[in-house]
């Protein structure tokens, strides 16, 4: 299992559209993906509703856990997505 810390840095945080992108990327891999923010229940990386429950506004630290045969590539892609502000301009 790979564990990574990553900071949410896009303007609106993990809102619906950003969450949907995360789901898309997570679903492209076979590994299991979970996310955790302090004080919130662990979220399933493939569920928008569950990710939005993280209430992760800009500046939130997330713990990303990826487990499975392609965990290396998956975690890399996911960290890139979050750090790249989900492809949003700001």
């Amino acid at each position, binding site marked *: 299992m790979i564990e990574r810390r990553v900071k949410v840095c896009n303007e*609106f*945080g993990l809102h*619906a559209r950003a969450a949907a992108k995360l789901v898309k990327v997570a679903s492209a891999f076979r590994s299991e993906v979970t996310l955790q923010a302090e004080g919130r*229940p662990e979220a399933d990386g493939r569920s*928008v509703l569950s990710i939005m*429950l993280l*209430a992760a506004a800009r500046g939130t630290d997330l713990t990303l856990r990826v487990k499975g045969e392609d965990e290396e590539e998956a975690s890399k892609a996911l960290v890139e997505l979050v750090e790249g502000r989900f492809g949003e*301009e700001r």
Partner: protein
Amino acid sequence: MSQIESKPKMLQGRPLSPGAALGTAYRVTPRVTGFFRLSIRLEEVEDEIERLQNALKDSLRQLYRVRDRLESKVGREHSFIIDAHLAILEDGRFLQEIESRVRKERQSPERAVRETAERWLDLYRGIDDPFFRERGSDLEEVAERILGNLRRSRSRGEEAEEAPQDLVLVAPRISLLVLTQFRLDRIKALVLTQCGRMSHVSIICRSCRIPVVTGIEHLHRFIRSGDTLAVDGTRGSVYLNPSPEESERFRDREAQHREQEPPGDPEPCRTLDGQHIRILVNTEVGREVEMGLRLGGEGIGLFRSESIYAERREGPVDEDTQFEIYADLARRARDRTAIVRTLDIGDEEHPYFSGLSGVPVPLLGLRGIRLSLRYPELFRSQVRAILRARAEGDLKIALPMVSSPAEVRQARSIIGQVESDLDPPPGEVGPVQVGIMVEVPAALIEIDSMLAEADFLLVGSNDLIQFLLAVSRTDERSSDLYDPYHPAVMASLNRVAQACRRSGKMGLVCGEVAADPQYAPLLVGMGFETLSMNPFAIPEIKERLRHFTGDHLRKLVSTLLDMSDAREIERRARSELQAPTQV
């Protein structure tokens, strides 16, 4: 007592979105939960799963259609609502939970959708951050949509409910969700009991040019599905089963109104007694400038500069980029004046500025000129960009949210410094004119000393009314209290007009009231000679103002100012300003 209530021919309400339309009434019944079975039998599982899948597919299809339509008609600022709904509808966890409740617990699909949604909603209700907590309401709407589609599939075949092509939707109130279940191009008009002027529904109807009348009580007593209705969204009246002649008249007006772009009206707007009323354009994008001028605008009354931040939210928009935008504005306006309002991040949360101030930018508090003065470098670079662009045309500056003369002096002194440091010097254009936005009640109370510091003023009536009446137009529950006919609003606007007259300085009104065919004449009666509005409203307002003499309007306003009841004021204004019978 046992007499049957005779149906009136005409119902009077309040206009929310102008225009005229003739169509067939369609009563939108409020969503009733309806009865559904709680459990199903083992042998029904596969059929019920199929019914569920179909309802989900229908929901997806509807949402994609709605999104495309909203995006092309209204733009992305409203279509994002639908994106959130789509993401939820495609959420694997959500869908699996529903399906497993049907398969394993043999719940009916209706109950499974309800209970699943309810379980998630409980979790959302526990979130502290209001932005994320609100996402629960998206989930609620999605669940409603699925349930609606389940209901439809159950009654399939029983009554194929074909909605007519020329719908006039009739309902006590209507949500965006319900509205978007109909094809917007089939909706001729809305007739409602309650609807906020600034709700998504009314904004969307105004931009799609769908007439809306609200404020009609007990609709169900008077209107049945299938009745022919002639809706006058400009005056707020609805005619029941009109005569063939009346229908013809409405059809003509409708044809005029529905044109994508109304014919321009290049003639200046003069009242019957020859007073020239200048009609200017409100805009936030350069593209709209030409349209506004073509439709008959005589200049740009309000360029909302915060729109430059709509695209770029990462950090400050640099001076050169801003210069290009303002120079483009000046060129498009050709030799006409364009007033640029400096940054007024307010109503909406803006992440860059939220980061700057540590909290979301509120409606009250640190916004407008206050934010600019708090971050003078930001302000300086915007001012420098505007001043440089003055080489291309006649740009003026308006300061938003000012609340004291000292604040205006402070802003002007920065503008003066930037102007004198300009390199190269501005040449023969002369010092820039600086105006103030009158929105904060403090500015209104101190109007004379405020105006002494400014070259002109703009009344931002939308915010002024909100602040005066302490209502939020974005809060559906109180937005009905937002009322331009409130005597305090009338008195305030009149007071501003008087101050402008005394000082000989230009006062223009740029809020929604200026674009309201019922209200614009009252502004003229108060003494305003310049009105600024969205491009589409221009021809109608110009034409309307030509029907009255300034004298008549002044007398009417003075009568209205003595009245104390908003509804009576509105009624009186309406009856005095009846469109003159055609000669």
